[in-house]
C-alpha cells in the first residue's frame, strides 16, 4: 500500500487474527467434547461470528489505521474469545449454583458491542490529539462517573463494593470507562503542566517539591481516590487511579521524587483507610488467612472465595485438568467474573496461566512501545497511561485471585464476564491502535499540520 514507508504489517495481523479466532473455536470444541462428548451445536455460528467480527475490525483498520500495531487486535480478540469460552463452559455447569444464568450469550453480545465501539473509535477519531481539547471536561466526566455509584442504592449481590449503577435489570460499572476518560485528563493536564511541575520546585530534604498551585490537583486526585475507597468500598479503582496518576506524573516530569512522594501518600492513605474501614479489614484478613473461612467457627461474612480459588489453582496444578474437566464452579458466582483467572488456572493449569499472563504482558508491552514511538507528548502520555492502567488492573485482579495481594474486586480485562469492562477495554485498544497508527505512519506530520 505504501511502497515508500515501513511495512505496515496488516497481513501479519490478519494471520494472527485467524489464529486468535481459531484457538477459541478449538477450545469451544474441546469443552463440548469434554462435557457432552460431542461438538457443541453452536460451534459453527460462534466461529463464524467471532471470525466475522474480527475480520470487520481488521478491514476497518486497513482503511482507517493502516500503520497501527499488528499485535494488539489479535491479542485482544484471543483473550476475549477465550473468556467467552470459559464463561460458556461455566454456564454448562450452571444450575449448580444459585444466581447463575446463561451468561455466555450476553458476553458474546457485549463483545460484539465492544468491537462495534472499537470500529466507531477507529472511524470517527481522526487523530488522538483531538482528545487534548477535552482535558477538563474529561476530568469532570470521570469524577461524575466515579462518584455516581455512591448515589445509587447498593444491591445485595454487590458484596460490599459500590461500583455499579443499576438501572432496572441493566447495570454498568462506570469505573471501567472512567479509567480511560481519566487518562485523557491526566495526559492533557500533565502535558501542559509538565514543565512547571518538573522545574518550578523547591528542594526540600533531597526531594523536589512542587509549588502549591501545581501540587493542588494531585492532592485533589489523591483525596478523591481515597473518598471513592471510603464511600464505595472500592479498593481496586482507587489503587488503579492513584497508581496511574503517579506513573503518568513520573513520565511527564521525569522526576523520581514523584514516585517517592506518591508511595508515601498511598501508604499513608492505605494505612488510615485500612485501620478505619471494616470492609478493607475483612479483605486484608481474608488475604492473610484465606482458609479461615473454613474454620468451624469462622467470623460472620468471611468469604471462602480466595480459599476456593486457591483450591482450584492447586487442583489444576501444572498442566490443569483440561477445559471442561475441572470444577472451578466451586469458586461460586464469581468463577466467571472477578475470579475467571482461577477458573483458567484450574482447567489450563500453570502452563495456561503463564500463557495468559504473557498475552496481557504483550498487550502492555505493545502499548508502551507505542508510547515510545509516539511523536507528540500527549500521545506518549496517553499511551503510557492506557498501557499501565491495563497492567495495574491485571496485576490487581490476578494478584488478588492468586493471593499475592488483598482481593479488591476488579474485572480481568477482556476475559471476565461484564459488559462495561469488555466495551471499555475494546475502546482502550482502539485508542492505543490510533496512537500507534499515527506513530508508525511514514513521514513526519507535525501536530500543527493536523486539521484540528
Amino acid at each position, binding site marked *: 500500500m505504501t511502497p515508500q514507508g515501513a511495512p505496515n504489517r496488516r497481513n501479519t495481523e490478519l494471520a494472527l487474527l485467524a489464529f486468535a479466532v481459531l484457538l477459541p473455536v478449538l477450545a469451544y470444541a474441546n469443552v463440548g467434547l469434554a462435557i457432552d462428548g460431542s461438538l457443541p451445536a453452536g460451534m459453527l455460528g460462534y466461529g463464524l461470528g467471532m471470525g466475522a467480527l474480527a475480520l470487520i475490525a481488521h478491514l476497518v483498520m486497513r482503511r482507517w489505521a493502516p500503520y497501527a500495531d499488528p499485535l494488539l487486535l489479535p491479542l485482544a480478540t484471543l483473550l476475549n474469545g477465550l473468556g467467552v469460552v470459559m464463561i460458556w463452559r461455566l454456564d454448562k*455447569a450452571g*444450575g*449448580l449454583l444459585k444466581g447463575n444464568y446463561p451468561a455466555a450469550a450476553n458476553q458474546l453480545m457485549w463483545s460484539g458491542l465492544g468491537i462495534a465501539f472499537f470500529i466507531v473509535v477507529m472511524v470517527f477519531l481522526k487523530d488522538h490529539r483531538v482528545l487534548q481539547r477535552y482535558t477538563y471536561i474529561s476530568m469532570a466526566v470521570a469524577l461524575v462517573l466515579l462518584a455516581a455509584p455512591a448515589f445509587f442504592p447498593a444491591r445485595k449481590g454487590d458484596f460490599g463494593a459500590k461500583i455499579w449503577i443499576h438501572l432496572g435489570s441493566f447495570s454498568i460499572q462506570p469505573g471501567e470507562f472512567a479509567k480511560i476518560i481519566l487518562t485523557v485528563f491526566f495526559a492533557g493536564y500533565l502535558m501542559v503542566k509538565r514543565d512547571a511541575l518538573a522545574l518550578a520546585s523547591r528542594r526540600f530534604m533531597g526531594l523536589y517539591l512542587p509549588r502549591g498551585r501545581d501540587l493542588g490537583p494531585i492532592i485533589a486526585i489523591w483525596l478523591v481516590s481515597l473518598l471513592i475507597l471510603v464511600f464505595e468500598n472500592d479498593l481496586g479503582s482507587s489503587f488503579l487511579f492513584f497508581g496511574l496518576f503517579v*506513573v503518568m506524573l*513520573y*513520565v*511527564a516530569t*521525569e522526576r523520581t521524587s514523584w514516585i517517592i512522594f506518591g508511595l508515601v501518600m498511598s501508604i499513608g492513605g492505605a494505612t488510615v483507610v485500612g485501620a478505619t474501614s471494616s470492609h478493607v479489614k475483612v479483605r486484608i484478613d481474608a488475604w492473610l488467612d484465606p*482458609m479461615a473461612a*473454613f474454620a468451624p467457627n469462622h467470623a460472620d461474612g468471611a468469604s*471462602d472465595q480466595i*480459599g476456593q480459588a*486457591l*483450591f482450584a*489453582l*492447586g*487442583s*489444576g*496444578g*501444572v498442566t490443569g485438568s483440561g477445559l471442561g474437566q475441572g*470444577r472451578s464452579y*466451586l469458586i461460586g458466582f464469581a468463577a466467571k467474573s472477578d475470579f475467571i483467572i482461577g477458573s483458567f*488456572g484450574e482447567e489450563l*493449569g*500453570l502452563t495456561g*496461566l*503463564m500463557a495468559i*499472563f*504473557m498475552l*496481557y*504482558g504483550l498487550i*502492555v*508491552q505493545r502499548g*508502551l512501545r507505542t*508510547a*515510545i514511538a509516539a511523536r507528540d*507528548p500527549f500521545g*506518549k*502520555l496517553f499511551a*503510557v497511561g492506557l*498501557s*499501565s492502567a491495563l*497492567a*495495574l488492573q*491485571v*496485576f490487581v485482579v*490476578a*494478584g488478588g485471585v*492468586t*493471593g*499475592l495481594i488483598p482481593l479488591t474486586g476488579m474485572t480481568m480485562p477482556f476475559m471476565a464476564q461484564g459488559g462495561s469492562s469488555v466495551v471499555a477495554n475494546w475502546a482502550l485498544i482502539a485508542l492505543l491502535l490510533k496512537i500507534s497508527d499515527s506513530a508508525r505512519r511514514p513521514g513526519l506530520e507535525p501536530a500543527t499540520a493536523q486539521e484540528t
Partner: protein
Amino acid sequence: MNKPIRRVSIFCLVLILALMARTNWVQGVQATSLADNTHNDRNKYDRYAYPRGNIMVGGTPVTSSDFVNGLRYKYKRSWKDGALYAPVTGYSSQSFGSSQLESLEDGVLAGTDDRLFFRNTLDMLTGKQKQGGDVTTTINAKAQKAAFDGLGAKKGAAVAIDPRTGAILALVSTPSYDPSTFAGGGAEDTKAWTDLNADANKPMLNRALRETYPPGSTFKLVTASAAFENNVFHSIDDPTDTPDHYILPNTTTELKNESANEPCAGATLKVGMDYSCNTVYGKIGADLGRDKMREQAEKFGFNTTVDTPIRAVQSFYPKTSSADGTALDSIGQHDTRATPLQMAMVAAAICNNGSLMQPYLVDEESSASLTTISKHSPKQLSQAISPATAQKLQDMMVSVVDNGTGTNAKIPGLTVGGKTGTAQHGEDNNGLPFAWFVSYAKDANNNAVAVAVVVEDGSNNRDGISGGRLAAPIAKAVMQAALSK
C-alpha cells in the same frame, strides 16, 4: 520522556513477573497440599466421578457403582444385601463420608492407590475409562447369611474365623442398616442418615468389632488355659479344690453357681466346664492371681487393638484388681470385657493347636483388569497356649457340647467344641444378661471354623436367656454353613 517510559515498562514487567512467580508458587509448590485439602470438595466429587471398584464376597461383587450422571456426582454407590454385609463393607456416601472397607480400601476402590498408577496411565493413554480396583474379602457368603438369619431380629453379633489362617468367614452385627439408603445426597438420604444415627438400637454400630461385652462363662476357656499353662493342673480330670460355698477372697460375699444342684464342689476341670461352675473357675483364677491371668488373656489378644483392617476395639482384662475382683474377672464378669471377634480368636487359637493367627478380612486387592496388586499371607499373632494345653481345652469344649450346656451345637459328622456364657451386666447386674456361645468345628479333612456369637437382651425374661439356648443354635448354623454340612 522515553527514559521514564522505559522504566515504566520495567515496572510493568515486574508486575507481570510477580504474578507469574506467585502462580508458580501456588500451582507448583503448594499445589498438592491445596488439592488434598480437606475443604477442597473436588476430592469428594472425584471419588464418584468414575466407577468405583467392588468389594467381592466369594467371587461375586456385593457392591456396585451406578451411573447417575448427577451434576456433581456421576456415580452413586449401591450395595447388594446391604444390611447383610454392612459390618464388612461399611458405607461410601456422597454426603456423609465413608467407613470400614469402603474407607480403608478407598485408594484401591477409587483407583487412586499408587500401585495402580501404571494401570491408570495405560488406561489414560488407551482412552479407557478410569475405574477403581476390586477388594476381595475372606467372607464366606453362606456362613455370613447363616449368622445373619440366625440373629434375625435379635440384637447381637457373630464372628467366624478360619482357625488355620485367621481368615474371617463371617462378620455380622444386628440390627444392621442398608448403606444404599444414604449413599446419595438427596433429602431422603439425609433423612435416612439422621434416622439411623438417632436410632436407639444403634444399627450402624459394628457390634462384632466395636462393642465390648462381659464375656461371661466363655472366659473360663482362658482361665482353664492359664491353669494348664502354669502347670497348676495337668489333666482335665484333675479334681479341683473347690468348696461347696466359695467365699470371694478377703470378703464375706459368696460366689454362687447357676443352680445349687450342680456338682461343683471339688469338681474336675472337665465337669466344672460342662456345668460352667463359677466357683471352680473363680477360685482357679483367684489362686493364679491377676498377673498370670492377664498374661494368658493378653496372649489371646486382650488389651491390644486388632486391625482386620477394620479396627477392632481393645478387649480388656484389668491390670489392677483385688483378689476378689480377679475371681470375678476369671469368670468373665467384673471388669473383663471382650469383643465377639476376641472370643472367636480364643476359640480359633484353641482349635489351631494354640497358634493364634492374625484375623483378616481382605484376601486380595486387584486392579480393574483383575491384576492382583496384593495378596494376604497368613501371619501368626502369638502362640497363645501350648499344643498340649490346646488339646486339653479341645477335649473340654467337645465335652461341653456332648455332655454339658452346649448340646444345642451338636452337628452330626463334625467334631464340635463349644462353651456357653450368660453374662450379667448393668447396675447391680440388673440388666438382662448377654447370651454367648464360643465354639469351633472340625471335619474329617481338618477343615475348621471357630465361631463366637453374642445375643444382647435376647429375651424378655431373665430365665429365658442362656448361651446354650439362644446363641448356640446360631453358632451351629454358621459352622454348618462354613463347613458345608
